[in-house]
């Protein structure tokens, strides 16, 4: 008889996607691997207390962090993807969409609406990388377009928290055309003199980077976010060289002149409010104290 009997393992499927901080007691930093109490991580706005890396935040967390409590009104919440190409894959596109909806609790990769940032009425979009890496299909393109249209109609500034990890291949050319659709509205924003401030978060690439994310009047990014047109792996395969350290991170992109402000998450709301207030000739309302901040 063996002294140590091999235990029988059962493979358990993770119920949450791996890139999300689990709801358990502990959270692991996606960068340095430190295990910290979930509560500490959350109190620190999902910024690792050990190394300072900004973990990915979902749309609901963004709304909670940036929008004044009780002021957010969601718009076009039911706008959903169709399958215009009848895309042939092992799993159908509608089936994939349903799986992501179930997993993320989202209908699509962006939540849009209207709300106040430190008292400033703003047209808002929050992209969420938990939904097919926040790739831009027709729904994302349409909803972001409507964020701008609402901003113009109501003469209020627009803020879009941008994220995207790639193209929505299942929508083919229509995915590409969303770049044109959204950018055409940024052109109208400029014509109308309405400010637009994108906030670039990790990762922000491909079609979103090559359209509305790069077209802000003032462009904000979170620290160390990966920001790119071509992904690092594609570049490595093309040029067959190891990429320099820090390549395509916010700080690198800012150094090359394509980002205005890099701001710690804790200061993101006040920075946004300050910029929006200046561009719209308003005063910033004093931040409510914690006791008042009941949503």
């Amino acid at each position: 008889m063996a002294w140590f009997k091999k235990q029988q393992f059962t493979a358990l499927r993770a119920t949450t996607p791996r890139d999300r901080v689990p709801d358990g007691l502990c959270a692991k930093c996606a960068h340095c691997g430190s295990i910290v109490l979930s509560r500490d991580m959350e109190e620190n706005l999902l910024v690792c207390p050990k190394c300072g890396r900004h973990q990915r935040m979902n749309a609901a967390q963004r709304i909670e962090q940036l929008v004044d409590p009780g002021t957010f009104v969601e718009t076009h919440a039911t706008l959903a993807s169709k399958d215009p190409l009848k895309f042939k894959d092992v799993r159908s596109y509608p089936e994939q969409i349903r799986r992501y909806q179930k997993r993320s609790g989202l209908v699509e990769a962006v939540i849009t609406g209207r709300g106040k940032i430190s008292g400033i009425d703003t047209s808002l979009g929050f992209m969420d990388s938990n939904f097919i890496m926040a790739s831009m299909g027709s729904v994302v393109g349409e909803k972001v377009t409507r964020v701008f249209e609402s901003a113009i109609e109501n003469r209020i500034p627009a803020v879009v928290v941008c994220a995207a990890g790639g193209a929505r291949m299942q929508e083919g050319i229509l995915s590409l055309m969303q770049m044109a659709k959204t950018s055409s509205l940024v052109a109208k924003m400029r014509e109308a003199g309405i400010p637009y401030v994108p906030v670039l978060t990790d990762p922000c690439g491909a079609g979103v980077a090559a359209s509305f994310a790069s077209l802000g009047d003032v462009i904000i990014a979170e620290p160390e976010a990966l920001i790119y047109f071509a992904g690092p792996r594609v570049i490595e395969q093309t040029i067959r060289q190891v990429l320099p350290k820090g390549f395509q991170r916010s700080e690198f992109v800012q150094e090359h002149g394509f980002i205005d402000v890099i701001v710690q998450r804790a200061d993101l709301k006040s920075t946004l409010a300050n910029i929006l207030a200046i561009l719209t000739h308003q005063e910033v309302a004093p931040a409510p104290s914690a006791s008042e901040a009941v949503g």
Partner: protein
Amino acid sequence: MAVQTFDFERPILELEDKIETFRNEPDDDPNAGKNLRRLEKELADLKTKVYSNLTPMQRVLLARHMMRPRSLDYIQTIFTDWVEIKGDRNFRDDPALVTGLARFDGKPVAIVGQQKGKDTNENVHRNFGMMHPEGYRKAMRLIRLAERFQLPVVILIDTPGAYPGIGAEERGQAEAIARNIMEMFTIRVPLIGAVIGEGASGGALGVGVVDYMMMFENSWYCVISPEGCAAILWRDAAMAPSAADALKLTATDLLELQVIDESLPEPLGGAHRDPKAAMETLRQALLRQLKRLSAKSVDKLLKERQAKYRAMGVYAE
């Protein structure tokens, strides 16, 4: 130089060889002439059969054919008084894109064309038609110049993608493309485009916001190449033909999806088999559309351009 051919064309080539041999060795058979005519008819039928039932991937291969007419071929054939304009006035001249002034049917126009090479040396110089940010900025410089002097702009698209490299990222590939897309909505002259070969993703759209978009029937235009899509979805670039089917990237597909306005027919077997015919097709189409677009008021033009792209996308409300 041997003409590049593809597997699906092999039966045609074999038959062509057979006819050639037959011609070169005239025997005493009194039926020789008849046999030759029979073979020639067979060849014509075979060509029609093969080339009128091309799969999307076969069209992608034809779009990449080494001898396919390039932007400069079209420019030098269907335009006159061509003067190339170089440089973005910031960093350098990007040879992957040519821009310039010319006349079309006697009337002044501006031209933007993505330019691939036809041999290795030229392709290295042209970076295989893959533009850097300075290329997109050069295109916008020319388009703004055209706007100042009321010249309609003809845009020829032929790129396997914007270049993915360190310098391109450092100099803001994403910003250059984004800005072009946005600014093209404000240009107060007609913009008319044609995909003559490959229309890969942001690399193509970065010069591709136009009032009227045409596409040759053996060209492709999509958010990703079939190889790229296959590698991501199925971790196997060899699955590219399946991806080409799924992506709906041909002119017929894009016409159906209302992303382009016209599909241009090509000579049997592809534009490289009869470049003059392909050029004449483009010339005729340009003639019609430039006349039509130039007749519109600028405000109407801009409104319609905006509305056209505003309507793109399929979703459930």
